[in-house]
């Protein structure tokens, strides 16, 4: 394993996480009664659904948190399965809503309100936290067996054999998606399909509101500035660019040619901005007395800047996908970001030349 991951994923014995957890671990040795078992259900209420909607829009993202602890669903006995989850509302709710009719315990660990996969990537959904929560909750008194079921996507932060060695509990990796749990629990084996991560149209679409929220401020500023300088048409191009980068790109991701996100973004950005550029090359929009050269400058800027911006937003979507490697993304950054900056810079230069030339006319 790499150096950088070792500090995050707390697998090595001298990692920072271990030191940080040493104090709470030491606390556990004192005579202390374990936390009460909370009750939960598999029903998601309408207000919880509204909370999910807010989370998907990036509203109050720190507040979608579940208290870490041990929860019982249905009427579990000491033989019932134990499932481990993150303390992010969407993670916990996806799990419990998939377990209708199942009697089990859910051990919610503290991932700082982050979903399972991202938390595993950082190591907060990790070996030490799981071992700590097992001891803290007195799980060995609650169940007779020594098995815990983790979501498969928790695996990047967890060493199953270390958990076993440190806690006595054997880690079983369940399916990627909670919806497959009912099937999984019948045999405790996952099919290859259950083990594979997908990135469907719907998966991509639910990410778009947060993407849009991320760019809303610069979009509004640019729209206002261009509205003042070039009128409603300029503002409209800004809005279309933001829409193309944050919604069209994720939606069309697998259908745009090439593999790299940057080139996909350049293609989409080019297609979206080309009609505007062609229109502006042939029409004098900003002032009726524009020369053909000024029209061409406007058209070039209108092509170059939005294309570069869409490509940049596209590249930034890599972290939201389910399959990009760090090595690949790094290669993309060094390969294409200079080119995008050059495109955007040329576009801005043309706009400045255009501005000076138009001012002289007045």
């Amino acid at each position, binding site marked *: *394993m*790499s150096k*950088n*991951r070792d500090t*995050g*994923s707390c*697998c090595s014995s001298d990692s920072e996480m271990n030191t940080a957890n040493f104090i709470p671990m030491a606390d556990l040795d004192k005579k202390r009664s374990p936390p009460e078992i909370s009750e939960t259900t598999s029903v998601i209420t309408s207000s919880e659904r509204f909370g999910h909607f807010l989370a998907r829009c990036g509203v109050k*993202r720190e507040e979608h948190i579940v208290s870490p602890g041990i929860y019982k669903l249905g009427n579990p006995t000491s033989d019932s399965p134990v499932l481990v989850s993150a303390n992010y509302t969407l993670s916990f709710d996806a799990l419990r809503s998939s377990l209708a009719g199942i009697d089990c315990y859910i051990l919610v660990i503290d991932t*700082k*309100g*982050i*979903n399972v996969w*991202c*938390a*595993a*990537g*950082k*190591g907060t959904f990790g070996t030490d936290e799981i071992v700590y929560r097992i001891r803290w909750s007195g799980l060995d008194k609650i169940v007779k067996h020594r098995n815990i079921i983790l979501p*498969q*996507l928790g*695996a*990047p*932060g*967890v*060493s*199953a*054999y270390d958990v076993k060695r440190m806690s006595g509990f054997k880690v079983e*990796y369940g399916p*990627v998606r909670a919806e497959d749990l009912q099937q999984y629990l019948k045999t405790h084996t*996952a099919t*290859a399909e259950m*083990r*594979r*991560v997908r990135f469907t149209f719907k998966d991509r679409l639910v990410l778009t509101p947060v993407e849009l929220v*991320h760019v809303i401020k610069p979009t509004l500023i640019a729209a206002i500035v261009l509205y003042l300088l070039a009128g409603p048409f300029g503002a409209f191009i800004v809005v279309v660019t933001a829409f193309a980068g944050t919604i069209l790109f994720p939606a069309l991701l697998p259908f745009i040619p*090439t*593999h*790299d*996100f940057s*080139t996909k973004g350049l293609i989409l950005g080019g297609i979206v901005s080309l009609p505007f550029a062609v229109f502006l090359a042939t029409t004098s929009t900003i002032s009726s007395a524009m020369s053909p050269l000024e029209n061409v400058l406007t058209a070039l800027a209108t092509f170059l800047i939005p294309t570069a911006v869409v490509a940049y937003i596209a*590249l*930034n979507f*890599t*972290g*939201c*996908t*389910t*399959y*990009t*490697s*760090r*090595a*690949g*993304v*790094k*290669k*993309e*950054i060094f*390969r294409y*970001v200079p080119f995008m900056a050059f495109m955007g810079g040329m576009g801005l230069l043309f706009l400045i030349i255009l501005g000076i030339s138009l001012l002289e006319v007045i």
Partner: protein
Amino acid sequence: MFDSYIENTLQYYPEKCINCLMCIQVCPHVVFTEGKEHVELKKPASCMECGACAGNCPVQAIEVESGVGCAWAMIRAALRGEDMDSDASCCGEDGGCC
């Protein structure tokens, strides 16, 4: 060309493999498949370097420089003069990317 994702840091040492199949269980992209004596590295280019296989391999037959492939976090780290390869700036903190 136009595929930056062909090469990655995944290393597999089949001679160490004890065929426990743990990597097949944890890999979200079916990079490994079952073989006769040991697990086969089937689709190395599909690896996203999440590190699940390496961290759960009891005999260190797999090595990978794991990390999150997030341009947003890496560019931000680079702009702040931090190490691009650190996980510090990704996901969840300060309105992170995912």
